[in-house]
């Protein structure tokens, strides 16, 4: 058995260099390292790693193929479970999923499953992969998928493989959802996302962009007039929250969604070659402690900000961001102002000049089990910044719920759907991903898309009889 207790390191761009460019931070394994890492897998019969994967990739199988140098087989195995392996290998929080259950993790570090998945997907992309469209009957039943994010793409891919005629309706001009507008280029190159999506199209999935469901079409029109027999809603959590503090409408205050959309989807970092502008602050405060906050703070540095601060009201232990993201942000020079709560955005001549904050200390645990931050009297101070980015979470966009009768939602506005099937309160309408759960991870959305695709297949087979 392999005595190597640690994962093989993955090369990265030097922090000083990468903090100034939008190129990918991590560089991926080379052939030798990938082979050596694959050798660490013990091929446990029970494969506990699989229970941690929301789409149940056959992990020991694809790793065995890498060991055997059968890269075509490796990607075939991966793709039979996961339509977007190049994405998942990069952005999944493996430490909480597959790698958490790896037996090697008990005594050392788990197998680098995510890194190997990425290696296989990148190998396939670089060496050319052939995608053959599955057989589809002339009278195949039509399924509409709303939203081309991770949930919708996964559901569409699975349904196409089952022989359904699938159309994805996407409101933006490019499919991918958060993979395109949210996660930055330096973590997930957009060319890779589009390549994985073009493979889905080769499966026969039609993607209609610029189609806003609730406006361009309603769900009832899709069902009653356009001939669709089932609908999957995967519209995500795209409605940004603001703190509702004074000064939030000053120039220089962004939601993280706007800041990241301008930069990622619209390529404002290439302005003026790309036409969309962005305000590059000298000193930027990002409010929040999740992955979106890390993405925004790191993006601000790359745009040329001299100082980029994370302002978070709890301590580092409570931060919801992945450890790796926090680590990367620190390496690049992002400064953390922890136990700090914003009270007001202050400005002059309608532009931001600072963020007035209060120091906090941790009190008793609250309902979420995290220690509640309590204000320290008399600790007010003003952080000198000229751009403020709010990254305090997102909610569901109400457009579909408000234009579809009989679709039940909870008090937060999320669509109520069965956890195992995605079935909503209306027959034939399924939902999954962030629109049901609230903002979560890419892979959980993909898992929900997968379960819904299976449930839609069952529903349509019964309908046909």
């Amino acid at each position, binding site marked *: 058995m392999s005595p190597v207790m640690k994962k093989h390191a993955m090369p990265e761009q030097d922090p000083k260099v990468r903090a100034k460019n939008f190129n990918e931070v991590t560089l991926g394994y080379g052939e030798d390292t990938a082979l050596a890492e694959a050798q660490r897998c013990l091929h446990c019969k029970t494969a506990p790693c699989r229970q941690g994967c929301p789409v149940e990739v056959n992990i020991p199988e694809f790793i065995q193929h890498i060991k055997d140098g059968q890269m075509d087989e490796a990607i075939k195995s991966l793709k039979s479970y996961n339509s977007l392996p190049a994405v998942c290998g990069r952005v999944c929080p493996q430490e909480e999923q597959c790698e958490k259950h790896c037996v090697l993790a008990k005594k050392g570090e788990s197998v680098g499953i995510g890194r190997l998945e990425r290696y296989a997907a990148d190998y396939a992309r670089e060496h050319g992969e052939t995608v053959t469209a599955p057989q589809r009957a002339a009278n195949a039943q039509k399924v509409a998928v709303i939203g081309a994010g991770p949930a919708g793409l996964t559901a569409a891919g699975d349904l196409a493989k089952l022989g359904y005629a699938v159309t994805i309706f996407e409101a933006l001009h490019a499919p991918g959802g958060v993979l395109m507008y949210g996660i930055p280029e330096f973590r997930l190159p957009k060319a890779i996302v589009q390549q994985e999506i073009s493979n889905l199209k080769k499966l026969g999935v039609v993607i209609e962009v*610029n189609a806003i469901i609730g406006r*361009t079409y309603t769900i009832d029109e899709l069902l009653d007039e356009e001939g669709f027999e089932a609908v999957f809603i995967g519209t995500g959590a795209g409605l940004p929250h603001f703190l509702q503090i004074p000064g*939030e409408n000053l120039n220089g205050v962004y939601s993280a969604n706007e800041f990241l959309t301008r930069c990622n989807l619209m390529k404002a970092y290439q*302005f*003026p070659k790309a036409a969309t502008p962005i305000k590059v602050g000298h000193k930027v405060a990002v409010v929040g402690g999740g992955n979106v906050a890390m993405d925004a703070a790191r993006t601000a540095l790359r745009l040329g900000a001299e100082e980029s601060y994370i302002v978070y009201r709890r301590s580092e232990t409570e931060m919801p961001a992945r450890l790796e993201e926090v680590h990367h942000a620190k390496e690049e020079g992002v400064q953390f102002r922890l136990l700090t709560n914003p009270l007001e955005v202050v400005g002059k001549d309608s532009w931001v000049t600072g963020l007035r904050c209060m120091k906090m200390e941790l009190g008793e645990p609250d309902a979420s089990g995290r220690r509640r931050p309590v204000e320290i009297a008399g600790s007010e101070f003003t952080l000198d910044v000229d751009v403020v980015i709010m990254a305090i979470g997102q909610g569901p966009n109400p457009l579909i719920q408000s234009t579809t009768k009989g679709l039940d939602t909870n008090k937060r506005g999320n669509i109520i759907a069965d956890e195992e099937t995605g079935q909503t309160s209306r027959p034939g309408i399924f939902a999954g991903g962030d629109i049901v759960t609230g903002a979560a991870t890419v892979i959980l959305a993909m898992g929900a898309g997968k379960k819904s695709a299976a449930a839609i297949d069952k529903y349509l087979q019964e309908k046909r009889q």
Partner: protein
Amino acid sequence: MFKIVAKKVLSPTVKQFAMAAPQIAKKCQPGQFVIIRIDDEGERVPLTIADFDRDKGTITLLFQEVGASTQQLGQLEEGESILDIAGPLGNPTHIKKMGTVVCIGGGIGTAPVYPIARAMKAAGNRVISIIGARTAELLIFEDEMKNASDELYITTDDGSKGIKGFVTDVLKRLIDDEEKLAEVMAIGPVVMMRGVAEVTRPYKIPTVVSLNPIMVDGTGMCGGCRVAVGNESKFACVDGPEFDAHQVDFDTLIARQKMYIPLEKKSCENGRGGCKCHQS
């Protein structure tokens, strides 16, 4: 791709396109808008739907060349295409029978007022319209507005056509003449809409304005278009674009509209049309 099926040059800087967009033409209602993107490097620009023809499957877009993107758009000819049109977006105007309705259009704001005036009249209202511009050459949609209205007043700042003065001067006169006005609808430059709101405020005449803040996606996912209405922050793209004029914080809107002016200048200088905009 969306094809330009007809192009009209209304003035050196104001152009009108009929675009082939059948699904949008089928669905759109007065008061709604679209987001367009010219090409792969393009930005997303909101434009109000000035008219539509459901049978031909076209929508009419009208724009003034004020910066790099609109100037680039203006150079396109009939038969050429743009990459993206998303819509219809925003809430439709509330159209119902109310009595006498005043429809006010300032500058190219007259274009989006036209389908509203037409629908107001079709709903059985008496429609009095006031359209205004700085000077006679900048007046648009005069014939259309005449057909859509029971009475039409024209104003120019320099008196080169119609009444010399502002649209608000005519509105004041209508109020003084004790016309019972059920609603005033105004679309145009923010300064004009603010002026209309101030005229009607003391009389508590319901007044609706269509706001034009900076937008990116136009579907409610970024909040770039947020405006202060009453004591709340609203997203104009999904909560509007029409709001109660007496509740709108126009000063914040004006300030936010200016956010990118230095960068817009840079965009022009860098070959996106080489426009003469923002030169004082």
